[in-house]
């Protein structure tokens, strides 16, 4: 070995090893718990800053807020400083990307660095948080509610849905009960002489026609009916299943609560999607398709049906007409199942909740200060500011409704981050309803109101099951996997039943028992 060579070799080895170590850490970022908690512990370090003494009433209260961010960038302070002025507070917002928010939440919980007001991400995170709530890590706010006139306007039914063991710990971010429906290519339907679908069979027939009858008229078989994604709940499946008469999460059968997948309608709904997929009338890879790719199929002009939130029609339309200028969309809901009954599933009226950790909010006086901020948030001025932005810049008022400005990017950047944290809904916090121009969206809003009349609630929304909190999500994975395998023809009814049996024996039986015990009370 020449001397020069060995030096080179040594250097390369060291370099390689260092690179190897760096690579190793890279992987650990997601995998090892210790690295993760260590990394994030420093991020929300300034969390417990809300300890300003509430001595003089004029001094702005210092409040920290932690919440998930659904946009790419952290919003600038435009809205924040306006809200601070309106509410006489000094706010510190800690935004974290929604994709990894659960991890951040758990890590912050573990290190005691949550903010004064800690938003969760959705109902599923709320269920996971319940054990921490039961451990007494968060303030119970029920007894304070009647001291705050605006907070006490919040809907009682929704508040009940967010209670843990009958006690209230959180304020909720309101959402319309049932926005789920169908968005379809009206121009294609008109061309092929199809009416707006009224039954599930009509929807299936439309998917077939969109696939086979060349609705885009280019002479090539390059269109499909439905576009779906790897999400049984917010994708097409749950909405379709509820049209078919499947209960929402849980339903009553022989006087007992049973999970939705124990009902024959659940199987029938899987059969509908299986039939669509086998006939190549929907995207073949839906079990591996992300929302972005699902939407791309629609806005690219390949697919003609989208089942999901009807509020998505605005963005679908915006991107679709870039590619197909002649495209026209419409929304549809109130679809009848095989037995002719209209039904649709409803969320429990909230999208997210905010909790008040005892590790950040030290005493009652501080808690009242934080609640006072949320009480002020529920006035029209503050709610409008946070939801719609600055009047004249981000929106204008038309017919007593808020019309979003055409500069969607600006609103997205400056307002969207705060929008998802507004407590209550227009009926309770007095903010403007939206003013829409797209006919399909206006139709969608009407349908949302109609949906409420036929909405099916989840009877377990306000019930508790210790086993469900502990294992529910892990067990649900068995059912989710089996459902996809059934729809892809990998397993038959017997195979699906076997998965249900597994679910039961691994803890499902206990969940059924516990929910029923709570239900009877």
């Amino acid at each position: 070995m020449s001397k020069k060579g060995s030096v080179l070799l040594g250097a390369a080895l060291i370099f390689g090893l260092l690179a190897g170590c760096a690579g190793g850490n890279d992987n650990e970022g997601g995998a090892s718990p210790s690295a993760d908690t260590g990394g994030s512990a420093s991020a929300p370090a300034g969390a417990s800053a809300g300890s300003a003494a509430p001595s003089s009433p004029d001094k702005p209260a210092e409040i920290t807020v932690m919440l998930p961010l659904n946009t790419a960038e952290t919003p600038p302070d435009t809205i924040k400083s306006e809200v601070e002025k309106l509410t006489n507070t000094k706010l510190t917002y800690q935004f974290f990307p929604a994709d990894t928010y659960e991890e951040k939440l758990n890590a912050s919980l573990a290190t005691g660095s949550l903010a004064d007001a800690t938003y969760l991400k959705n109902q599923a995170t709320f269920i996971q948080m319940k054990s921490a709530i039961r451990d007494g890590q968060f303030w119970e706010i029920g007894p304070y509610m009647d001291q705050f006139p605006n907070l006490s306007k919040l809907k009682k039914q929704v508040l009940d849905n967010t209670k843990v063991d009958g006690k209230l710990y959180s304020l909720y971010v309101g959402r319309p009960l049932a926005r789920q429906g169908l968005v379809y290519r009206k121009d294609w339907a008109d061309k092929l002489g199809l009416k707006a679908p009224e039954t599930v069979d009509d929807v299936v027939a439309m998917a077939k026609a969109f696939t086979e009858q060349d609705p885009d008229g280019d002479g090539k078989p390059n269109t499909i009916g439905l576009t779906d994604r790897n999400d049984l709940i917010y994708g097409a499946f749950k909405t379709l299943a509820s049209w078919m008469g499947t209960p929402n999460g849980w339903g009553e059968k022989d006087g007992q609560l049973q999970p939705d997948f124990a009902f024959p309608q659940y199987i029938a709904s899987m059969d509908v999607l299986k039939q669509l997929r086998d006939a190549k009338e929907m995207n073949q890879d839906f079990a591996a398709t992300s929302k972005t790719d699902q939407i791309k199929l629609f806005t690219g002009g390949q697919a003609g049906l989208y089942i999901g939130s009807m509020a998505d029609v605005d963005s679908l339309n915006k991107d679709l007409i870039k590619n197909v200028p002649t495209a026209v969309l419409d929304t549809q809901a109130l679809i009848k199942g095989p037995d002719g009954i209209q039904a649709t599933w409803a969320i429990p009226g909230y999208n997210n909740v905010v909790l008040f950790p005892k590790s950040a909010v030290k005493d009652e006086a501080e808690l009242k200060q934080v609640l006072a901020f949320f009480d002020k948030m529920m006035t029209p001025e503050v709610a409008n500011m946070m939801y719609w932005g600055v009047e004249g810049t981000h929106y204008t008022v038309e017919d007593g409704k808020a019309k979003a400005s055409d500069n969607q990017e600006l609103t997205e950047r400056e307002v969207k981050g705060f929008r998802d944290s507004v407590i209550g809904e227009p009926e309770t916090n007095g903010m403007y309803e939206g003013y829409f121009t797209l006919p399909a969206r206006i139709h969608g809003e009407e349908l949302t109101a109609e949906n409420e009349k036929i909405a099916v609630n989840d009877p377990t929304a306000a019930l508790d099951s210790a086993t469900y909190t502990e294992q529910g999500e892990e067990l649900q994975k068995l059912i989710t996997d089996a459902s996809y395998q059934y729809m892809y023809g990998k397993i038959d009814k017997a195979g699906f039943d076997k998965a249900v049996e597994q679910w039961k024996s691994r803890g499902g039986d206990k969940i059924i028992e516990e929910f029923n015990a709570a239900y009877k009370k």
Partner: protein
Amino acid sequence: MQEAVVRAQAAPRAGSERSKRIRRNKWLYAMVLPGFLYFLVFKYIPMYGLIISFQDYKPFQGISGSKWVGFAHFERLFAEPDFLRILLNTLTLFGMNLLFYFPVPILLALMLNEVRIGFFKRFFQTLIYLPHFMSWVIIVSIGYVMLTMDGGIVNELLESMGFEKINFLLSPEWFRPMYIIQVIWREAGWGTIIYLAAIASVDTQLYEAARMDGAGRLRQIWHITLPAIRSVIIVLLVLKIGDVLELGFEHVYLLLNSMNRHVAEIIDTYVYTAGLQQGKFSYSTAVGFFKSLIGLVLVMTANRLAKKMGEEGVY
């Protein structure tokens, strides 16, 4: 008595000798210090956290306040119906890594070494190690766009040639090939760097002598290049085995879906979905701890084997 006296005399001498040695090499010690601190702070001190795998850890109560539960979390892991499958999946992917990925950089390095035109050699070397700098999200997305049945280029090509479309993304049979091909595509070029450096250090006189004796290119590779880099290969092999269970959490997690879960779920993804996402810190730690133990056993075995084969090993 006498012995004690001897030792007492010897001790100060040895001590002063050592301090003298340290003083003489103080700059070398100073250079070692950052690395030492790195391992202490980021690798050894965090091991303290392993305690929580024997506790019912409640973040609010901290390590000192949480209840001790002994081996309960490990018992739960071993009793888990999916445990054996997940372990097998992990070991299978690891085996495939060793079998299919590990030799590729060696072959690539040998091939690059035979390229005589300097420009081409540098050009290809750069080209093949570029993917290393892409994140798995990008690589998996590229894979999705190419392999999807809804207009993916590979399936369109298959169809135009008269074959059936293949469901790469969702079939359990294709998960492992897809995984290993993506690993090779991303890492193989990067892996050649060390081998190329090792090859560069081979004395050129050996090649000249071999040529004089009439050895062709392949003979030269077989009798000179490979034996010369043998020790490097073995050290890297042992290190690789030490990483046994670092299969790339991100990569597998992104490829995982409901249809291929029974072959694609590995320990890392299991820790994430069953533990971290649901805030079960103790259980996650217990599973991670178990994984490290497997890694330790494997690396010790590999090192012993390396020594048996007359190589130095890594320690």
